[in-house]
């Protein structure tokens, strides 16, 4: 018998601290598998966000750096400009990227920085206890929108992939989900394409990945996958928004 699925080399042996059923674990594995398959582990430099994935530097078996909240694209810019032959990626959540880090991400894509952003969108602030994020859906109950988010009070959820795809500097922008095996495979393909876009020096690349937060959504892991499919995918359509 030959092994067909096992821990990728680009992950350390540390156990993930994520809640049961949190799809961060799946996304970590996909990023690591792409690094393995493209043989880029020795060249890769990852930037961690502030948020649930703050400890990702313990999990990825490549060079990792920690950024201040939302500033991962700025740090990635500096590293990539100094070491242009490396693969530089950031791994950010929606609170990190779409809220406090909005300035950094918009200008990094506008400048066409040759970096890759893995953007995990679960429509809520996970680590701090389930507050409303810029990506929280209308009507969604969070600890800071206990009666559901309303457009009158909090405006509309931000569609980051569509927003950044308008920038001329963006080379590859895609949105995927990890709610079933087919979408997980599509996500892996998208991450690989984003890394290849960077290695071909085409410019800024981002993969927005719709993810679950069973704990803060107040659902079981399986119910959370269903909630993602029924509520998030209709508002955040999947697909490639820019390919060059």
């Amino acid at each position, binding site marked *: 018998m*030959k092994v067909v699925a096992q821990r990728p080399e680009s992950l350390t042996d540390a156990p993930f601290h994520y809640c049961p059923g*949190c*799809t961060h674990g799946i996304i970590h594995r996909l990023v690591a598998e792409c690094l393995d398959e493209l043989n880029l582990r020795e060249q890769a430099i990852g930037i961690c966000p502030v948020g649930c994935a703050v400890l990702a530097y313990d999990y990825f078996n490549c060079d990792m750096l920690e950024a201040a909240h939302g500033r991962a694209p700025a740090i990635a810019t500096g590293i990539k400009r100094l070491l242009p032959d490396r693969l530089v990626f950031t791994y950010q959540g929606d609170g990190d990227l779409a809220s406090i880090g909005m300035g950094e991400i918009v200008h990094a894509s506008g400048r066409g920085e040759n970096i890759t952003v893995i953007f995990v969108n679960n429509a809520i602030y996970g680590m701090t206890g389930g507050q409303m994020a810029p990506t929280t859906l209308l009507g969604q109950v969070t600890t800071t929108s206990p009666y559901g988010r309303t457009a009158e009070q909090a405006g509309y959820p931000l569609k980051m992939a569509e927003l950044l795809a308008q920038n001329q500097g963006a080379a590859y922008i895609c949105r995927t989900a990890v709610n*079933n095996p087919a979408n997980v495979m599509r996500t892996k393909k998208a991450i690989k394409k984003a890394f290849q876009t960077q290695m071909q020096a085409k410019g800024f690349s981002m993969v927005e990945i719709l993810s679950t937060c069973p704990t803060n959504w107040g659902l079981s892991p399986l119910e959370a996958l269903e909630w993602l499919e029924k509520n998030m995918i209709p508002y955040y359509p999947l697909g490639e928004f820019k390919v060059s």
Partner: protein
Amino acid sequence: MAKGRVTFRTERCKACELCVRFCPQQILSLNKTMINPLGYHPIAVVREEACNGCGICALMCPDLVITVERE
């Protein structure tokens, strides 16, 4: 003889059941007679002979509990 074989690092299982939900052969289930060091009932195979080694359980596992082998 089964075509595939799945092995688990049960001490890391958090009982989310994503593998149970997506296994096309429906051969996985939580072992309610055991509790792992994290405090969960860990994953187990119910019908070993039916595993075809497709790897979908490992694809959906967020905690890299599962290793899959195939002939």
